[in-house]
């Protein structure tokens, strides 16, 4: 599965690229689900010392064990597979706390994973423009309800029901890096109960 192509959108919507090896003292690679494919592709073009200084953090999610053996088999200096992004956060924060000049960050997979990991990196002062990203797999979005402020993970339909307050929200392309989330806004405020049929997010 290759990188995802998105329709052009508004200027706050993140744009993802294609991972490429960059010179660095150390390399932090964080991926979920199909994002593993981006790391495997990246590793094909890497020199030996890349993996010797690489730390792979992988959350398989619904990809299960499809990629885990291959990823582990790359022989990165550190390999970690976690049960959820939340479970991996303390590890990510700890690794970033050691970040020195020359750290390269590579993120791959869903928007929710990349957005949240990017936020961890920028919180410690790493410039977002220096972080590489590649979207693979599910187009599910991490959504903030603008009304109750609750976050609903892995939203795949528009509209959707806020998992906190229950309002029916439509999915905007407006995106906040600080929240690592898109904005969801009540879809039937002007005509309560008139909720459009759900469509898959593309």
């Amino acid at each position, binding site marked *: 599965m290759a990188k995802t192509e998105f329709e052009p959108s508004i200027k706050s919507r993140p744009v993802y690229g294609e991972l490429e090896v960059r010179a660095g003292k150390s390399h932090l690679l964080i991926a979920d689900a199909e994002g593993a494919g981006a790391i495997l592709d990246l590793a094909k073009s890497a020199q030996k010392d890349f993996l010797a200084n690489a730390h792979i953090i992988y959350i398989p999610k619904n990809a299960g064990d499809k990629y885990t053996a291959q990823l582990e088999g790359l022989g990165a200096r550190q390999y970690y597979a976690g049960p959820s992004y939340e479970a991996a956060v303390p590890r990510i924060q700890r690794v970033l706390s050691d970040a020195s000049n020359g750290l390269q960050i590579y993120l791959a997979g869903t928007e929710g994973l990349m957005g949240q990991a990017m936020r961890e990196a920028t919180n410690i002062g790493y410039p977002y423009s220096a972080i590489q990203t590649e979207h693979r797999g599910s187009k599910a979005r991490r959504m903030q309800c*603008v009304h109750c402020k609750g976050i609903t993970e892995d939203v795949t339909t528009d509209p959707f029901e806020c998992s906190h307050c229950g309002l029916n929200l439509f999915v905007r392309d407006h995106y906040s890096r600080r929240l690592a989330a898109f904005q969801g806004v009540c879809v039937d405020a002007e005509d309560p109960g008139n909720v459009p049929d759900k469509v898959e997010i593309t």
Partner: protein
Amino acid sequence: MNIRFNDETFRNDYTFKNSDAAIKRFPFPFDKDSYMYAVNMEPHTPVREGSVYYNSFDVDEHYVSEMRDRAMVLDEDPLRCQSLPHMELAGWDLLELIMVEKAKDYPDLFELHRDGDNWHWINKPLGIDDKFTFMDATTLPYGPMEYITRQTQGDFCVLDQRDDNLWMDAGMVTTQADWSLDFDIGMNFFEWHAPVPLAHEKGIFVRALKFLLNIQQGAPARRLNWTMTVNPLLDTSPENYHKWGIQKTTLTPENIGNKQHLRVELQTFFRLPRSNGLVFPIRCYLIKLEELVTYPKWARRFHRVIRDLPVELATYKGFIDNRPMILEYLSQFDDGAETSPGVWPED
């Protein structure tokens, strides 16, 4: 200057209205019979004594009631006022700017006495008399930005300038045209304007940013923006849209003159001296259609502007469904006569 402050509400029973004097000084935004986005910046220098363009920070008859409404919004939702940690210095810059300008422009309402860092601020309309140490936030009941903007009409975006861009890193936003500070805080100029249709393609934001990056201390600028609001609701926030959105469906031919408001934003831009930030006050003025049509020139022109506005803009501004009814009302006041150039009602 003699201002009689109204006791009025912007919610529930909506007793807000404009006096004849307030109608006459309303910042009508259309200088010709059509409208399209433009950068439309001009120096924020005094124009016509008594107009909203005369003082740095206009204080009008709605001041006390607007500040009461802001306090209610903040009690319900403290996230409407936020400041990222590096923005406190800009908050002091803003506090100084507003206090100095208001004390100068409205000496009978506001007084500022300074002895080194020992400051004494008196706000007579709100009954505030505080002594504090400049640059020491522990001597104020709120952070400096929140303290002064609880006492100043209009929303305030305090922008950090870096990497040739402006960053929305602090703000007090309770009278907004449907955007969320809590969501947009931390965004750059292009990102927080991302949802605006048509203007990006026209290069408006690239030119506007270039202009704003070069604003110098002591040389503020201004522009107008506008939208439409049903009921005199200052707090048309996305946060509460699920509560107020339904009000848009309550217009009838009988109540439209009273319920439908033109909402005009007087946007000003001041360079801040210590932080090199930029403060972007967005002052909201509301006028009922029945108030606006008391000036025939405005009535004719407004009818033509609304009639000819592109669908995308009427949709973005949130009144596409009500446009036919608005036009039916306004058309009664448009006899097709020519209108004089410029915004002033009686020129």
